[in-house]
């Protein structure tokens, strides 16, 4: 007979079991197939020089590499976030609709463990997908940078520039290659996708359908991208032109409290694609912000889900 000790509120092992099952579920849904067109896109970028590249000039080379990175990072962000919304929206409402959840919750599984397991599973799959896309981006970018370095070095030698100057130009071009800054940009997109998973998780705890969860999650994502514009307008009197009313301030406060602010995530990714130096403390701040959002949304999800009746 089973032991009579009470199951702990948070059991890492049980959370991992649910996370592992979620990963298996997503893998067997063949979600990684979406990586194939992305791979084709990233590799295909190598052959589109002519669209924006007019000749071996440093500025143009930098523009070309920046464009390469922008497309790769943008694709990663778009697919990461869409994947976060769709997969989370499919899993929990799916479990309720299929009544699989009945059988799970009739075992000694605290509801928080179930939610954390689902969150962890989806985030892990996004991490793997992001890592694969990152690997593809780094590989294609490396090949491109190497080709451009060889091309531009040859040109500068022909022009008779001194070696020190050539090295300086080479360093500028190499900064647009695969650097730690670029990885910070990838991390920013991954963290944003993880926050969106938590948002979709919260919505799916009270939603009755997959479609509703997807629609509302995408809406929250879009508001999260642009809410800073509204907030800046409402709280920065000088830019606003006239003093905001109390109602404006209340609305602004609600929007900034309820919806995540993705400006910092975007700023770090932008900096990475422009080969600007990303300050590690900013990355730390970003991780803290993402952790805070994850914590808030998971606790809210549990609050809604703990007394939900089936």
């Amino acid at each position, binding site marked *: 007979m089973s032991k009579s000790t009470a199951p702990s509120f948070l059991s890492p092992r049980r959370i991992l*079991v649910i996370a592992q099952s979620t990963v298996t579920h997503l893998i067997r849904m063949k979600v990684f197939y979406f990586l194939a067109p992305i791979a084709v896109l990233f590799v295909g970028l190598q052959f589109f020089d002519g669209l924006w590249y007019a000749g071996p000039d440093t500025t143009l080379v930098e523009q070309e590499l920046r464009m390469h990175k922008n497309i790769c990072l943008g694709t990663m962000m778009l697919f990461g976030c869409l994947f976060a919304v769709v997969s989370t929206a499919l899993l929990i409402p799916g479990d309720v609709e299929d009544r699989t959840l009945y*059988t799970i919750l009739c075992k000694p599984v605290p509801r928080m463990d179930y939610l954390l397991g689902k969150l962890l599973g989806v985030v892990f799959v996004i991490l793997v997908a992001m890592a694969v896309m990152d690997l593809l981006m780094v590989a294609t970018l490396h090949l491109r940078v190497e080709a451009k370095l060889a091309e531009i070095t040859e040109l500068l030698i022909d022009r008779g520039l001194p070696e020190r100057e050539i090295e300086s130009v080479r360093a500028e071009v190499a900064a647009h290659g695969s650097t730690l800054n670029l990885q910070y940009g990838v991390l920013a997109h991954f963290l944003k996708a993880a926050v969106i998973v938590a948002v979709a998780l919260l919505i799916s705890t009270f939603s009755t359908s997959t479609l509703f969860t997807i629609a509302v999650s995408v809406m929250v994502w879009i508001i999260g991208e642009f809410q800073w514009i509204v907030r800046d307008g409402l709280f920065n009197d000088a830019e606003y032109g006239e003093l905001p009313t109390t109602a404006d301030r209340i609305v602004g406060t609600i929007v900034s409290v309820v919806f995540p602010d993705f400006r910092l995530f975007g700023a770090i990714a932008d900096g990475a694609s422009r080969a600007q130096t990303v300050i590690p403390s900013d990355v730390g701040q970003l991780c803290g912000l993402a952790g805070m959002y994850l914590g808030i949304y998971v606790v809210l999800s549990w609050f809604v889900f703990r007394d939900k009746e089936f």
Partner: protein
Amino acid sequence: MSEVPAVEVKDLVKDFRGSFRGRKVRAVRKVSLQIAPGEVYGLIGPNGSGKSTTMKALLGLLAPTSGACAIFGRNSLKVDSRRDVGFLPENPYFYKHLTAAETVRFFGKLCGMRGRKLRERVSELLKLVGLEEARDRRLKGFSKGMLQRIGLAQALVQEPRLLVLDEPTAGVDPAGSREIRDLILELKKRGITVFLCSHLLEQVQEVCDRVGIINQGVMVKEGVLEELISLENRTELVLENAGPDLRDQIRLLVEVTDGARMVSEGKARTTLERLFLEETRDRPANQKNLQDDE
């Protein structure tokens, strides 16, 4: 009952709110029941009578509006009460992407089992429910009866002291249904308490010690099965090889006895289910055809 009851439902009331400020609907009205450890209890009632609501409240899937449910003395709203329960839902749905063995393993892991003990338990249960050969097949190809069997295996995975079965033989053929019934009796022998909901009254009658009849949310009758179904003023005799003379004598004896009356007389009958099982299990169809030809 001096020991802690396996199941205790006390004055359970459950209201459901209609959508958009609709009227409240009372699904269960002050239902009380107790199941002693080792007992097989059947809850029967028409559709919408409150059986599933009572069962869900017991499993913590619904919170009672008033009253309380407990499993081995623990409040059923608390997670730890589910450590001792195995539940087989009606029309069980599981992750279709998992195989039979993976499904039982998944639920075993949720109950904290692992390693060799879990592996052995998975094999033992698949054998018990007759799905050994389908252990590596994904559930999406399973028939309803096979899903019911895998549901039973997952319900038993952590060796629960209480088994809650909601229509356990729904969609299962008569032979499979008989096996499930035998399994319930076997579990009873092992001291496992069974709480059963079924529309198949004959089946309930065969396995249950006590029965509750629920209608429109109210427990209308409850008690020991034999006491509920026996007619106090009637006696049934089943005779074998009784010739016409013996039957005449009995009839005569009844006629001369004060107040006694022969209510009915006729050939004793088997049930259609027993006939079906005898014809399909003991004698394969092709063998029967050959005999007919001869």
